[in-house]
C-alpha cells in the first residue's frame, strides 16, 4: 500500500495555504461564470505551479468537485429540477467508471495522467470555442432550450403547477401531487420528477411554460456516464461536460434538468474514486482544505457576479489558456519540462 507522508515547514504551509485558497477562489469563480468545472484549472495549477504530485492534485480536485456538487446540487435539488431517479440510474455506470478511473490512476505513472489530461484539456478548449460560437449565433435551440410541452402552457407558475399536476396525478395519484403543486405555486419549487419512471416536469420561469419530459435511450446515458466517471477518477474533473450533452442530446432530457441532475451526479462520482485515493493516502488535507474552501467561496461569488462579466469573452480567454496549459502538461508528460 502506498503511504504518503508530507512534511511541510510552517512558513511554507502558511504561504501555500493562502495561495491555494486564492487558486480555489479563482477556480470556483471561473467555473460559475464560464460554466465549467474547476478541475481543468486546479489540477494543472497544482502540478505545474505548485509542483505537487499529479495524484495528490487529482485527489484535491475531486474534493473540490464534491464541495461544488454539494453546494449547487442542494440548490437545484431543493428547486425540484434535479431528477434523482435519473441521476441514480446513471450513477450505476458512472460510479463504476469512477472506481475504475481511481484504480487506474494509482497504478499507472503520473506522466501518463499528465498526457491524458493535456489531451482532455485540448478537447475541452475546442468544445468551449465551438459552444461559444453557437451561442454567438443566437442558436437558442442548439443551446438546448426545450420547446413548450404539449398543451401545458400556463400564464403563471401557480396555474402551471395546478394544471400540470392535475393531469399528472390522474387516477391513483397520491397526495404528493397536491403538495408538489403547492410548493411550485409558492415559488419554493419549479419542478418535480415522475414516480416509477425516468421522467418529470418543470416550470420554465424564463419562458413561462411547463416542460414535461421522459428520458429515452438509456444505453447512451450509461455508456457516456461510464466514460465520464473514468475520466473523473483519472483526472479529477467533474465530467459534466460529457454527462450534460449525453442526457440532453442523447436521452432527450431538457438542458436545465440535465445540468441540475449532472450537478448532483458529479459529487457522487467523485466520491467513488476519492475513496480509492483516500485509502491510498493521496488526499492531503493541507492541499484539499484551502482548495475546497476557496472553490465554495469562489462559486458563490461567481454565481452572484456572473451578470457583470461576459461569459463568452471569458470562455474564449479560458480556451486559449487551456490550450497553453495543455501543451505544458503534454511537455511534462514527455519529460521535456518539469514542474
Amino acid at each position: 500500500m502506498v503511504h504518503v507522508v508530507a512534511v511541510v515547514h510552517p512558513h511554507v504551509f502558511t504561504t501555500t495555504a493562502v495561495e491555494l485558497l486564492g487558486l480555489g477562489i479563482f477556480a470556483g469563480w471561473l467555473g460559475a461564470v464560464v460554466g465549467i468545472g474547476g478541475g481543468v484549472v486546479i489540477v494543472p495549477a497544482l502540478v505545474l505551479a505548485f509542483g505537487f504530485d499529479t495524484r495528490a492534485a487529482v485527489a484535491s480536485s475531486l474534493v473540490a468537485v464534491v464541495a461544488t456538487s454539494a453546494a449547487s446540487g442542494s440548490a437545484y435539488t431543493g428547486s425540484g429540477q434535479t431528477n434523482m431517479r435519473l441521476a441514480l440510474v446513471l450513477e450505476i455506470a458512472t460510479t463504476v467508471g469512477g472506481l475504475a478511473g481511481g484504480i487506474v490512476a494509482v497504478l499507472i505513472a503520473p506522466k501518463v495522467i499528465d498526457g491524458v489530461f493535456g489531451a482532455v484539456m485540448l478537447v475541452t478548449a475546442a468544445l468551449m470555442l465551438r459552444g461559444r460560437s453557437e451561442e454567438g449565433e443566437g442558436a437558442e435551440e442548439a443551446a438546448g432550450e426545450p420547446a413548450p410541452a404539449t398543451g401545458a402552457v400556463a400564464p403563471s407558475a401557480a396555474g402551471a403547477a395546478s394544471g400540470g399536476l392535475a393531469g399528472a396525478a390522474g387516477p391513483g395519484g397520491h397526495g404528493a401531487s397536491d403538495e408538489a403543486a403547492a410548493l411550485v405555486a409558492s415559488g419554493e419549487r419549479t419542478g418535480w420528477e415522475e414516480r416509477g419512471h425516468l421522467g418529470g416536469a418543470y416550470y420554465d420561469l424564463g419562458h413561462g411554460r411547463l416542460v414535461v419530459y421522459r428520458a429515452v435511450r438509456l444505453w447512451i446515458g450509461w455508456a457516456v456516464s461510464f466514460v465520464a466517471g473514468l475520466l473523473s477518477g483519472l483526472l479529477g474533473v467533474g465530467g459534466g461536460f460529457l454527462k450534460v450533452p449525453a442526457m440532453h442530446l442523447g436521452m432527450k432530457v431538457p438542458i436545465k434538468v440535465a445540468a441540475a441532475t449532472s450537478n448532483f451526479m458529479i459529487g457522487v462520482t467523485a466520491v467513488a474514486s476519492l475513496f480509492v485515493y483516500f485509502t491510498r493516502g493521496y488526499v492531503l488535507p493541507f492541499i484539499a482544505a484551502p482548495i475546497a474552501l476557496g472553490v465554495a467561496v469562489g462559486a458563490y461569488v461567481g454565481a452572484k457576479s456572473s451578470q457583470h462579466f461576459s461569459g463568452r469573452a471569458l470562455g474564449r480567454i479560458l480556451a486559449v489558456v487551456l490550450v497553453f496549459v495543455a501543451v505544458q502538461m503534454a511537455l511534462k508528460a514527455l519529460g521535456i519540462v518539469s514542474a
Partner: protein
Amino acid sequence: MPEETEHRGTPADPRTNTVVKVVLRVGLTGSLLLLVAGLVAQLATARHVAVDVRMFHVFGAPSLGEALMGLGVLILTLTPVAGILSVLGNWLLRERDRGFSAVAAIVLVVLAAAVIVGFLG
C-alpha cells in the same frame, strides 16, 4: 431537443428532494466549518505539517489542525453518500418505490466496493 410527450405519470414525493437538500447543506456547512477551524488552528500553532491521512486515520493526526482538516475532508466526502442514503430511505419507506430503491442500493454497493478495493489494493 426534448421529446414532447403526453406522459404525465404520478409526481414523486417532493419531500425526497427536500430531505436531500437539507442533508447536502448540513454536510457541506459542517465540513467547511471544520476545514476553516483546521486551517486556523494549523496556522495559529505554526507547527510542521506531517500528514498521514489514510482513511479513518484522521483521529490519530499529530495536531488539532490536521485532525480537523482531515475530518472536514472526510465528512465532505461522505456527504453525497448520506444524500443517497436519505433518497433510499424515502423511496423505500415513504414512496414504496422498490425498483428505484434497488437502484440506489446498487450505487451504495459500488461506493462500498471502492472503499474495499482501496484497502485491498
